[in-house]
C-alpha cells in the first residue's frame, strides 16, 4: 500500500512567472513526478488563505503556491503580499497539528523551467516523506 500511495498535491501558480516556467519545462521536456495539479491565477496575490486551508480540509497531502521572484511581480508587489499571508498559513498549520512542510511557497520565473522541475521533485519528496495527510482519516 505504501508504494501504491500517490500524494495529492495542489499548486496555485501565477500566470506570468511560474505557469510560464512550468510551460518552459514542458517545452524543454524536463521530466518530473506527476503528483501535482495546478490551478492558474493571474497573480499569487489572488491566493486567499482559505483556498489553501480548503485544499487541506479536502484532503490535500501538500499545497504549493508559486509566483514571481521578489521585485519581478507582473503586478509590482502581489507576491510580497502573498508571501506575508503564507507565513500565517505555516503557523496555522502548525497550530492545528499539520506539519508545515506540507505547505510551501516558491518563486520560479518564466525562464526557470529547470527550477520548476526541481521544485516539483522537492515538493513531491517532502510530501512523500511526510506520508498521507492525517486529515484524510477524518474524511473516511
Amino acid at each position, binding site marked *: 500500500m505504501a508504494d501504491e500511495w500517490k500524494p*495529492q498535491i495542489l499548486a496555485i501558480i501565477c*500566470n506570468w512567472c511560474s505557469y510560464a516556467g*512550468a510551460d518552459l519545462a514542458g517545452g524543454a521536456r524536463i521530466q518530473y513526478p506527476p503528483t501535482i495539479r*495546478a490551478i492558474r491565477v493571474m497573480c499569487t*496575490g*489572488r491566493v486567499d488563505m482559505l483556498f489553501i486551508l480548503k485544499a487541506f480540509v479536502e484532503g490535500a497531502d501538500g499545497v504549493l503556491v508559486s509566483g514571481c521572484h521578489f521585485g*519581478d511581480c*507582473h503586478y509590482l508587489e*502581489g507576491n510580497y503580499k502573498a508571501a506575508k499571508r503564507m507565513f500565517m498559513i505555516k503557523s496555522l498549520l502548525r497550530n492545528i497539528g499539520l506539519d508545515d512542510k506540507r505547505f510551501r511557497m516558491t518563486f520560479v520565473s518564466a525562464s526557470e523551467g529547470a527550477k520548476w522541475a526541481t521544485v516539483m521533485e522537492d515538493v513531491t519528496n517532502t510530501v512523500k516523506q511526510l506520508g498521507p495527510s492525517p486529515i484524510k482519516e477524518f474524511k473516511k
Partner: protein
Amino acid sequence: MAENTEPRIGVFLCHCGTNIAGSLSIQDVVDYAKTLPYVTIADQYQYMCSTPGQKKIDDAIKEHNLTGVVVAACSPRLHEPTFRTATKEGGLNPFRFEMANIREQNSWVHMHGMWEEATEKAKDQVRMAVAKAAKLEDLIPKSVPVERAAMVVGAGVGGMQAALDLASAGIKTYLIEATPTIGGRMSQLDKTFPTLDCSQCILTPKMVDVGRHPNIEMMTYTEVEKVEGYIGNFDITLRKKARGVLTPDEATAKGIVGGGCNGCGDCAEVCPVIKPNPFEMGMAPRKAIYIYHAQVMPLIYTVDFDSCVKCNLCVDACGDKKAIDLEMQDEFITVKVGTAILATGFDLIPIEGKREWGYKQFDNVISSLEFERLICASGPTGGHLIRPSDGKTPMAVGYVLCAGSRDNTGGVAKAYCSRFCCMYSLKHAHQMYEKIPGCKVYLFYMDIRSFGKAYEEFYYRIQNEGTKFIRGRVANVLEDPVTKNLHVYTEDTLLGRPVDIEVEMLVLAAAIQPKEGADVLRKKFGVSASQDGWMLEAHPKLNPCGTTTAGVFLAGVCQGPKDIPDTVAQAEGAASAASIPIHMGEVELEPYFAMCIEDLCAGCGMCVNLCPYAALALGEKNGRTVMVVTEAKCKGCGTCGGFCPGGAIKMQHFTTPQIAAQIDAFFAGGEQ
C-alpha cells in the same frame, strides 16, 4: 443564456499529433470526461487548433446548446485566444472557455513509462477545468482609447531607429537617453564589420535625422522615474537630470533672448576640474563641464555636478549667452504615451574579474572597447595605435576571444555567446595590418562564429591577411616586468601542445551584460528577465519584440546579444509592433477586473491599501461605506480579492466559487 439553467459543457481533447496522444490515452480521458457532471459532449481531434478542430467546437455549441467549452490541449498561454475565438464563433461569450494544459504540463513532462500516471493526471486536469467552466460567466472586454504617442528608452542605434520609424509613421515619439548625447555604443566604434564602414559616418546622419524630426522629442540626460497605467495609457514620469546648462529654447523661455548653449566650448576651456571621459573609456580627459565628443547630439554642454567646484569661471566665460546655471535642480515631468520600447543596450563585463588575463593588473592588457577608441581617428590618440605602458606602437598584438563568454566557471563569466566578439576581433586584426604594416597578430579563439551575411567571407579575408589563429582558451597571461610585454599561455588544441606567445599588447574581447540600471528600468515596466539577465521577450520565436506587459516592446541588445544589423531589424520590428495599437486607436483589455459585492462589503478599506495601482477607494453607496473600483486602473491581479476578509471582492474570471470548484474537483477524484 439564462443564468439559472444547468451548465452544459463540451469537452474537446487534442492529440496534437503524438505530442499528447503519444504519452497518455486520449480515449480514456474522453470516456472519463463523458461521466463528469454537466458534460454534454466529449470529443477528440488530431489538432484542435486546426480549422476542422475549431469547427467541432463551433458545431457542438450550436448542436448541444452548450454553456461552456473545455479544450484539453497545449498551454492557454499559447492557444487560449484561438479557442476563445472559436467559442465566440459558436455563439457563446468567449470567456465561457477554459483550457486544460495536458501538453506542456502533462504529456511533455511525463513521457517515459508514465502512461497511466499521465492519463490519470489528464483526467484530473479535465475534471478541474470542467468544474471551472461550469461556473464561468459572460464577460465583456473593455475597449480603451490609445494615446497617440510612444516612448523609446535608450538612444543607441536601436532606439534611434525605432524612434525614427515611429515618428515617420506620424506618431509623436519621446526618445529618452540617460547620457548627455544620443548615439550609444555604436558611436564609440571605429569601423563596423564586415563592410568596414566608418561607424560614426553611418551613424551621425541618423543622429541628425533624430534631432531634426518634428515628431521626435529627444530628451537626453533624462531617466525614467516611474511608470503608471497600462497599454494605450501609460503615464511615465521622467527625471530630467540637472544639466546645469540651458538649451537655446530653454533660455528663450526664460527670457534670455539669443542665449543658451551654442556648443562653443568656452566654458570647458576655463574649467579647472579634470576627470576621465567615460566615452573614451577613461583614456582621455574631460572637464567638469563637458561634451562626450565632437559629434554629440544635441550639442549642449553638461555640468557634472559630482565634480564641479562651483568656481563660476564657466559662467563668466559663457557671458551674455547666460547658458550656465549652476543651481539647476532635477526636474520631473510626466508624459502620456500609448506604447513604449526599451532599447537599453549593454555594458562589457568587469573583465578584471577574470584575474588570469591580467586586465587592470598589466598596463598593456586592454578591453576591446578601449581598442576601438585607441584605433579611432577621433579617439584619444587621434587614431595612432599606441600601447598604454610606454606609448610605443605595438608590433605584436594578441586578441583573446570569448573573454568571459561561453564560460561556465561563474563569477563575472557568462554562459552565453556574446555574438559579435568574433567578428569585431577579425575586424581589429584587419585594422592592425592596415595601420601597422609588418605587425604580427595572434587570435586566440574557441570557434569563429561568422554566421551573418558576408561574415564568413570576411573571415577568409582576414585568414589570408596573415593573422595567426590559435585555437585554445588562454589559460594565463604574465607580464615581463622589464619590457612590459605579455606572455600568453594556452594550449594550441589543433597542434595538441602548450604554447607561450609573447605579444606587446593584449586585447580582451570581453563578454557583454545588460546595461547598468536596466534591471531597475525593466521592473518599472513590468518586464521579466531571462535566466541570463537579459530582458525576456513574450515568445522567443514568435514574439521576439514583445514582452509580457502589453504595450511594452524590446529592441536591440537589451533582449539578448546581437550585432548592429540584428539590432536595427529588431528595432524596426518593435517600432512596427508599437505602432499597431496606436494606429488602431483603441485596445481591448482583458476583463479581469475586481468587482465589489456591495452587500458583503463592510467598508474596512483593507483592499484599498493592498492595491498597487490605486484602483480601489472607499465611497458611499445607499448610505453605506463600500469599496468602489476604477475599472480602467485595475489590472486584475486579484491581490484585493485574495485578502478581503468578507469575501466581498469578486475577481472576474478567477472568482472564489470558480477556484473553490477547481479545488473541490481535484479532491473529488475517482469515477463519478
